[in-house]
């Protein structure tokens, strides 16, 4: 096995692509953050996005966010579907006028010769009822494959955003599958001598079994209620939105688990989403008020 940092002409390892994207956005003034250390369904749910987009302060950040979607698990059998995939999330707040050019530059930076490919921006407006958040944007298609979700955030936690952030979400597995020209995500070469299968297959298999078959429903409900109660207790204090948000994320993930276990009935479903949103909106309000106040005193 080669020990060079590249598989050959134009074929970087998984970790090379991640590193190149990070350094590209670092050069454009982004903080390079590490993944948030709780279970989230998408990079948007990490506080570096959900909270930082609120309020009048500028912010620029990029990070990889492993994103867990229990219902998407396929026991490691499907070449495209994963229980946990990795997103590279970029927030540019406010969005610069040349944001699309910057984005296209990032594709060049990871070795895509745009002159030889077909790029299209197709309407796709992102929305998360659980977070009370939505935006306007596109899915970016490269030779017919969606590689990025591009969103101008408009509202978060039910609050209109002061500055309009651009959110770029790169689907890393898809992007690298394309760059390495492999059929299955498990054939991606993560690093010299290590495939995606070696790194992640056990994860996919075990969590598929757990999420679909073994997760104990009464325990999950109990946990949901404990985290929800703790979240509301923290919201009442009014000064600890970050810990309260952790409880929100816990509830959101538990909801997803219960859902993949088929444990949420028709009548419950809308109600449970509403309970999580209530926490999210409460957190967003406290955070936003603090940001607004700080901007005034600053």
């Amino acid at each position, binding site marked *: 096995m080669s020990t060079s940092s590249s598989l050959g002409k134009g074929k970087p390892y998984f970790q090379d692509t991640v590193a190149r994207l990070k350094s590209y956005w670092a050069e454009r003034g982004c903080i390079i953050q590490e993944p948030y250390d709780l279970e989230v369904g998408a990079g948007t749910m990490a506080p570096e996005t959900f909270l930082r987009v609120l309020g009048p302060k500028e912010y620029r950040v990029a990070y990889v966010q492993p994103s867990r979607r229990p219902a998407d698990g396929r026991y490691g059998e499907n*070449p*495209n579907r994963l229980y946990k995939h990795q997103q590279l999330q970029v927030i540019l707040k406010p*969005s610069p006028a040349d944001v699309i050019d910057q984005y*296209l530059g990032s594709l060049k930076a990871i070795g895509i010769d745009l002159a030889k*490919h077909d790029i*299209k921006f197709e309407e796709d407006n992102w929305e998360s009822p659980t977070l009370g958040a939505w935006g306007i944007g596109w899915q970016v298609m490269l*030779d017919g*494959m969606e590689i990025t979700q591009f969103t*101008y955030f408009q509202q978060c936690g039910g609050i209109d955003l002061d500055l309009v952030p651009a959110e770029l979400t790169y689907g890393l597995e898809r992007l690298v599958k394309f760059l390495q020209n492999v059929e299955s995500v498990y054939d991606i070469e993560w690093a010299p001598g290590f495939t995606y299968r070696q790194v992640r297959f056990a994860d996919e298999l075990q969590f598929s079994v757990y999420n679909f078959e073994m997760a104990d429903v009464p325990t999950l409900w109990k946990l949901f209620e404990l985290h929800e109660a703790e979240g509301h207790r923290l919201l009442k204090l009014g000064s600890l939105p970050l810990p309260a948000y952790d409880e929100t994320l816990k509830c959101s993930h538990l909801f997803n688990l219960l859902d993949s276990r088929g444990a949420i009935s028709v*009548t419950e479903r809308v109600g449970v989403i509403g309970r999580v949103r209530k926490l999210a909106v409460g957190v967003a309000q406290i955070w936003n008020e603090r940001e607004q106040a700080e901007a005034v005193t600053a």
Partner: protein
Amino acid sequence: MSGLPFYLEIGSEEIPDWMIVPALNHLQDSFQSCLDGSQVGGRVTRVGATPRRLVLQAEGLRESQEDSTEVVMGPPKSAGEGALRGFAKKTGATVDQLQTETTAKGEYWKFTRAVPGRNTADLLSEALPGLILGIPWPKTMYWTGKNGPRWIRPIRWLVALLGDDVVPFEIAGVRSGRESQGHRMLGVKGVIVSADERRAKIEREIDGLIAGKDLRVKPDPDLLHTLVYITEFPTPILGSFEEQYLKLPREVLTTVMRHHQKYFSVENAATGELAPHFIAVMNTDADPDGLVRQGNEGVLRGRFNDARFFWEVDQKKTLADRLPDLAHVTFQAKVGSYLEKTHRVVALVKELGGNEHAQRAALLAKCDLTTDMVKEFTDLQGIVGGLYAKEQGEPKPVSRAIYEHYKPLSMEDSIPSTPEGRILALADKLDTLRECFRVGLMPSGSRDPFALRRAAQGVIRILVEGNIELPFAETGELREFLIDRIRYYFREVRGFRYDEVNAVLASGIRDLPDVAARLEALHQVRPTADFEPLAASFKRIANILKQANFSNGGPVDASLLEPGPEHDLFKDFDRVRQNAKTSDYLPALEAIATLRPAVDRFFDKVLVNAPDDRIRRNRLTLLSNLLTEFSAIADFSEIVPSST
């Protein structure tokens, strides 16, 4: 054309394809109104658009408005020297520039002021921001900050030239200038502004790609429209996939290609069978190394693999075994789950006389909602259920009924092809309507989130076109809603005149095939000579009875009838009553039309309001019986004469 040319280009980030044409039309109209309203001449000669720009050209604009005058009326001449000076001062004129005018109230001072025409450039500078921001988009965003302007996507450049000069204005920090931007990759030469040219390029090059290959591309105008407006420089390419995927159902393959990848499917020209090829349209000029083709082929292979995986996994659990899972699938939050809906629909199918196959199909119809295939390809609901039912050995009438039970999906779509499918589709839609109305989810204005209008249209078409004589027994608001859709169907879809529809519906609705038959007969008899005059007489009869407040429908006392026109009408009435006693509506209506001479003579010669009350009441009874007897097919008094 003399005068100045004008060029406007609004540069934007990618606008959703389906919004572009209405926006461009609106811009064209509002700009032309602006020219007309400002009286600077000129007309819009060309518009064009791509996802990144709306372009408008006009010609023949004047440099400025024409000079004009404005008359300012002053004090009466009798008001004296002081008032005159005051008026002169106010208008900025000298006294000798003032004139007098004699009005009805006396002689007054006036001043005729010259108003110089304003520069067209100035007028446009003021008007353009409002015109551009006034384009009504279905969904807008802000991008410069919370209180910034709203548009469909961020505006990134503006070109506005009157002759050679920039018309200056600013929107969201972007100043108008003379420089456009090119295609994101190809630069200025990579933009075809005309949608017609882009469409022609796609069509021409597709023909080139399949020439001599015994292939044909299924025409798909909607997809073509999308591709025309999602590209600035469209270039089609021909890709292939492995023949093994042709084992998957054609419906699945074409849905993946059409809806997920925006590809045209390709057929074998001789057999019409799906060929292992597709046509993708790039937004660039060429694919010299085949990378774009390979990329698209790889994506399609992945999607087909997914579909095959879904198919295999889904077969592990039959549709019948999935029934209990429907308890977890919401039909509508206030109404309940799809399991509950299924039980209602099965009962309704039974009630409607559906056979065992129809009932079985009703039981399984919604089970595909729990399959991975439908979760992924939601457009295939029903179709997937039908395919799986067939695969799992359900009888053909069952699988066919499931397959087609969402039909008709549009006005153009056909109704289900089998009796079982029709009963199931009917029951499913009727249940949706009844339940949504029961919990208060009626459509209002343009809001119809549960597509109840479409469901109602489906119900009506299945009943009429499927010739199902189901008694029309709905009540309350749903009845009114359905009658409204019935009117719409017969007028807009079937092309009957509104008064014909009114006349037939006023006679009641037994069932919809009956309504259709009565309308058809009425429509045919209408052009005959006697019909409309007779209809006018019926209207007269209705008015007479209304004025007399008469509703007694007892028998006519023949002994009280005057010989002549009155007795003749009574005899004719009896004769026609015999002839009109047929369920064949056309001869019946033709027979009724023969009443005309007798009715005309009656009104000519006979005084309904006879002095003798017994005779008067008997005449009213005759007319009342006539009206009641012959209004069963249509209420002729609703007919509005076509020539008066």
